[in-house]
């Protein structure tokens, strides 16, 4: 039987506000347990939530960037359940009337086509605290620093058909929220994480299969692995004559498997109802227009522009716009390189990316600035140095030895283009290798490379290779 995979993602993006969604406590990560939890976060008797207005603008930005409707009126609701790290016994979320709904995002597939992924809704909610099960002698420690941190939960339609597509979609959302500057995207710190709803159905069947929800996956790699594991598991279950049960599962990265957490029967009845402590969020059209004006150039538009302005392929432009920081780095490099788009793209995605990958660093931690890189590329394009020498210059820049020009100057790396000087060196090389000259003249023209190599060796690579070739051929006649 051929199976079709159906996936929908629920992404939790922590909104980059300084204070919490319903209190004035700080959202900074990494403080001592319970030092960033005020009376409101602790859910003490009598306290009331007050909405942090910043989150409304952020959600609206996301809505506009995903072609969604930004609801003129949305309502906070209480999701009731008991858990020690949920201080009030309910989470304030949005249920029937979310702030953003009915949008989409286009993702690029490996075969070069694009696929439109529906965004059902995005709603505002508060995060819970953290339960710490170790170091408390059989008891559980509670850290409420995270309680009340603002989240935007972005729910996709079940439009994804493979783990790879799910990752592409998640990456795209990740890039988008960072472009919009509404989430720092830090997955280690839990600022960006997702739940995946996975089901399978026989190819061609309309009806969805029973889904399992995999909770709290916090890396792109794990999303792919968890989904692929889950797909295999479900196929095994069905092909082994069983049925998939609706349940919540947990991905264990160490064992690379998903495990059942609770079944549908054990699931909570959350008893949602509108939170009477908060007024509906009313958004006027003028507000939406004001937010629209603050939107940066978004990835798709930027990618399009890169192909046009710099003559890049769609794939290259897509890679360069995968993050706002990378795109900005690239454009600053181009500027410093006198408009050399293609050359800049090759270096940013080639040497620089390789170097960063090797060091496990991000573009923001690049050892060379775009101005430095561009300055060097300028020297390639004006013939001062060859591409080969450039790698040497680049390495020196990365080691903090200064700008390209000073490195070229100091190390005497300037290309030799003077034909008289080149002729002189060639003469010396030919004189030193009479046997090879004879063989060449006898028809072994492959030896031209040998002579070029000798000349380059003699000039430490600084001779202009084109000139060397030209003059060599003339002199060997």
């Amino acid at each position, binding site marked *: 039987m051929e199976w079709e995979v159906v996936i929908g993602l629920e992404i939790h993006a922590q909104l980059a506000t300084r204070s919490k969604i319903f209190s004035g406590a700080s959202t900074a990560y990494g403080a001592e347990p319970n030092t960033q939890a005020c*009376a409101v976060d*602790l*859910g*003490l*008797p*009598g*306290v*009331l*939530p*007050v*909405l942090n207005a910043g989150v409304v603008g952020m959600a609206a930005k996301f809505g506009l960037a995903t072609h969604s409707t930004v609801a003129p009126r949305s309502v906070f609701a*209480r999701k*009731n359940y*008991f858990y*020690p790290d949920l*201080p*009030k*016994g*309910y989470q304030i979320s949005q249920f029937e009337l979310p702030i953003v709904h009915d949008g989409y995002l286009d993702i690029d597939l490996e075969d070069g086509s694009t696929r439109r992924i529906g965004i059902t809704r995005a709603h505002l909610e508060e995060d819970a605290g953290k339960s710490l099960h170790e170091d408390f002698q059989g008891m*559980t420690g*509670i850290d409420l620093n995270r309680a009340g941190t603002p989240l935007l939960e972005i729910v996709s339609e079940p439009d994804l058909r493979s783990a790879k597509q799910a990752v592409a979609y998640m990456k795209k959302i990740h890039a988008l929220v960072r472009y919009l500057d509404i989430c720092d995207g830090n997955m280690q710190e839990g600022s960006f994480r997702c739940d995946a709803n996975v089901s399978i159905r026989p190819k061609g069947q309309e009806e969805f299969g029973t889904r399992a929800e995999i909770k709290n996956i916090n890396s792109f790699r794990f999303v792919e692995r968890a989904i692929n594991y889950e797909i295999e598991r479900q196929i095994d279950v069905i092909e082994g004559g069983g049925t998939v049960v609706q349940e919540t599962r947990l991905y264990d990265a160490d064992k690379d498997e998903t495990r059942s957490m609770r079944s549908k029967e054990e699931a909570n*009845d959350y*008893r*949602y*109802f509108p939170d*009477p*402590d*908060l*007024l509906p969020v009313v958004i006027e059209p003028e507000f939406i227009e004001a937010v629209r004006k603050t939107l940066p150039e978004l990835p798709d538009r930027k990618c399009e522009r890169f192909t046009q302005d710099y003559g890049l392929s769609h794939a290259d432009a897509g890679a360069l716009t995968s993050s706002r920081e990378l795109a900005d780095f690239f454009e600053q490099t181009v500027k410093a390189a006198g408009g050399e788009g293609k050359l800049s793209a090759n270096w940013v995605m080639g040497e620089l990316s390789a170097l960063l990958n090797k060091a496990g660093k991000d573009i923001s931690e690049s050892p060379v600035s775009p101005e430095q890189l561009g300055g060097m590329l300028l020297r390639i394009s004006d013939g001062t140095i060859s591409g080969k020498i450039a790698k040497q210059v680049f390495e020196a820049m990365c080691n903090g030895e200064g700008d390209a020009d000073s490195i070229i100057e100091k190390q005497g790396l300037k290309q030799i283009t003077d034909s008289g000087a080149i002729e002189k060196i060639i003469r010396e090389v030919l004189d030193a290798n009479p046997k090879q000259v004879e063989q060449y003249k006898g028809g072994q023209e492959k030896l031209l490379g040998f002579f070029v190599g000798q000349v380059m060796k003699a000039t430490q690579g600084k001779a202009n290779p084109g000139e060397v070739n030209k003059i060599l051929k003339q002199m060997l006649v």
Partner: protein
Amino acid sequence: MHQKTIVEMAAGLRAGEFSSEELTRSCLQRIETHDAQLNSVITLTAEAALAAAQAADARLKTGDATPLTGIPYLHKDIFCTEGVRTSCGSRMLDNFEAPYDATVTARLKQAGAVMLGKTNMDEFAMGSSNETSFYGAVKNPWDTERVPGGSSGGSAAAVAARLAPLATGTDTGGSIRQPAALCGITGIKPTYGRVSRYGMIAFASSLDQAGPLATSAQDAAYMLEAMSGFDPRDSTSIDQPVESYAQSLEQDLRGLTIGLPREYFSEGLDAQVGAAVEAAIEEYRKLGAEVKEISLPNTALAVPAYYVVAPAECSSNLSRMDGVRFGYRCEDPKDLEDLYTRSRGEGFGAEVKRRILIGTYALSAGYYDAYYLKAQQVRRLIRDDFVQAFKDVDIIMGPTSPNTAFRLGERADDPVTMYLSDIYTIAVNLAGLPGMSIPAGMVDGLPVGLQLIGDYFAEGRLLNAAHRFQQVTDWHTRMPAGFE
């Protein structure tokens, strides 16, 4: 000294006839002497009260005083008070000391009022008789075999017995007005959103509203003014300037139109209470008011709608009482489930549990539409009834409660009859309107309350109408025997 109104007290303080410290000592003395009979106070804060009184005396000399500076009051134990136990009448919070002041607490502190202590109340404000308190029932000073009403029963009994000139209350379905009526004092529940709910332990968030209990409308006016105002920490508080209620008290009532809802004078109303209310209305006619019969057709739906909405909200509001961070925790919990089950099972009383169960049921999947959603629709109908009525009348009047104070224990096992004590008051909360109760007669030695209901933010008009009535009647000056 204890028989004075706060206007007289304020004048005495300024004239140097007595100090706030003396006034405070006198109240503390009265509580000491009389409260054993009433059980109206849970926590007495004598030392802090005397310190506050001394500070008030100093402030009075600077000329920077407010009408409440140096005036003692009792605070319902539902308002958080920094460093002082806030029990909400429950074993659950018997050990709870709030690390912060409620906005109402802070405002009264700022005004210079002197808190004497915290008053007894129905557990988490759920009750109409003050019998559900973990700290025992409060007795009605008019007859200590009878209930004072609830849930602000401790506040009402204390003011009626002149243990303090003022007390705070909260009103979710009648919890200021009904005990005011049963104890023969004046109480006002303002428009929803007029007084901040921050730091007031929530029973039903969309209905709860704080207000004063006093012996007269004039005193209540001063206290309400001090309690009211926009609070950025309460999203449901309304950003509208507070009127000077005391200044509009004297306004003439000629031309005032009073509406009497026929549904409030029908079956279920005690005949003698009805007659007393009619007599009070007659006084208003004499004062120049025009009286007309009106209809609030959805009145019968108020109690059922309320007993869906209020329990639903309370079931969620009380979830934070889980034994994890504060409040009662059971001994030696075996595991998390056991911690929750026993802490809540042992910490909450029977009425609170009943309402949590009702509310949980009403919000459950499959029942939500039939109960909660339907109740909210009914609520709109009830509000529309009032909006319609206020097109024709300025104030709606009727009985506050269908009976005078009933005997302790009489309705304890009959929740439905108990719930009907609030039949005339509940609709006002559902609509979010201001309502008040003033003493308007006596039946068999027990006080009868007249309810006044106003349009949104018409607190000033209500207080004015109540004050004019009190100028020509003396019901509000009567004191229970043994407490004069």
